[in-house]
């Protein structure tokens, strides 16, 4: 159990580094769908309902430095996905499946 927690925390660190630092160097060209739409002349909507969000477009509002702006935005998204994904799956998980290990978990304080 504790080893699984260590793996999850290490994996989260990798995700935070990829999202927070490496993403700055990602390609800024339109993705496959947007390129095809532009080439074929498919017009999309001009704005987005979430344009007022503090991290709309993967840029943090009020942060001028582009590297920091994107880093903060993507990092926050990684943490929100971890929390929401973990909470959702935790809520639908199988209960009393590992009844033998559950008391041990509670006693050791491990998850």
């Amino acid at each position, binding site marked *: 159990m504790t080893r699984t927690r260590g793996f*999850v925390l290490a994996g989260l660190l990798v995700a935070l580094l990829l999202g927070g630092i490496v993403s700055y160097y990602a390609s800024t060209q339109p993705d496959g769908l947007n390129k095809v*739409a532009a080439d074929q002349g498919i*017009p999309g909507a001009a704005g987005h309902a979430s344009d007022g969000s503090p991290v709309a477009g993967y840029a943090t509002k009020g942060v001028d430095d582009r590297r920091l702006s994107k880093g903060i935005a993507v990092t926050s998204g990684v943490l929100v996905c971890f929390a929401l994904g973990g909470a959702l*799956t935790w809520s639908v998980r199988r209960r009393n499946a590992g009844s033998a290990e559950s008391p041990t978990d509670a006693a050791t304080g491990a998850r």
Partner: protein
Amino acid sequence: MHIPDGFVDAQVSLAFGAVAVGGVALCLRGARNELDERTAPMAGLTAAFIFAVQALNFPVAAGTSGHLLGGALAAILVGPWTGALCVTVVLMVQGLFFADGGLSALGLNVTNMALTTALVGWLTFRAVRFVAPRTKAGVVAASFVAALLSVPAAALMFVLEFALGGTADVSIGAVFTAMVGVHVLIGLGEAFITAFTVASVLAVRPDLVYGARDLIPALQIRTAAPRQEAR
């Protein structure tokens, strides 16, 4: 591959919204058998990792980029039902907070990038594993092929949706050719990222790869054998 608002009309968007709701409801039921105290945090990590790697657009052709979709990867790591839920969480966060993917198109995007990729990815993974050797290398090879096919499958779903409710009067044949062409290339990127990630997790914690659970008994017997006596 996030569809913005305005590419597909309201009726078809609404219809695929219903498809997405039904699909997610099925996933919530199916995920119950994949999830326990140990795997639920892994699902959270999978969602977080996919969000991060989706921000890493890689160049594929002149003036075009692609990014991981992640449905095949998630299905292999945490199971197909849970995997589709992980990508759905990512798509909702992207649409609601990052203005990425239209909110009216959320059902289309969940159908293409979460449900289709997890379904096609998982079925392909199972099919390749059926004929591949029962080894870690076999799992990695199956992951590669599953991811490779999952991306053009999602692109085909977009072509179907656009054929049913496209707002622009353009040739469906041209959209089909262009979409499939570029997404075969993006699928290659998806395949390399997925195979590398699955291989990395297999190297440290093979027991945490849902699609490789059948390898675990063999591995345990090997590690349980006392080394000194064997030499």
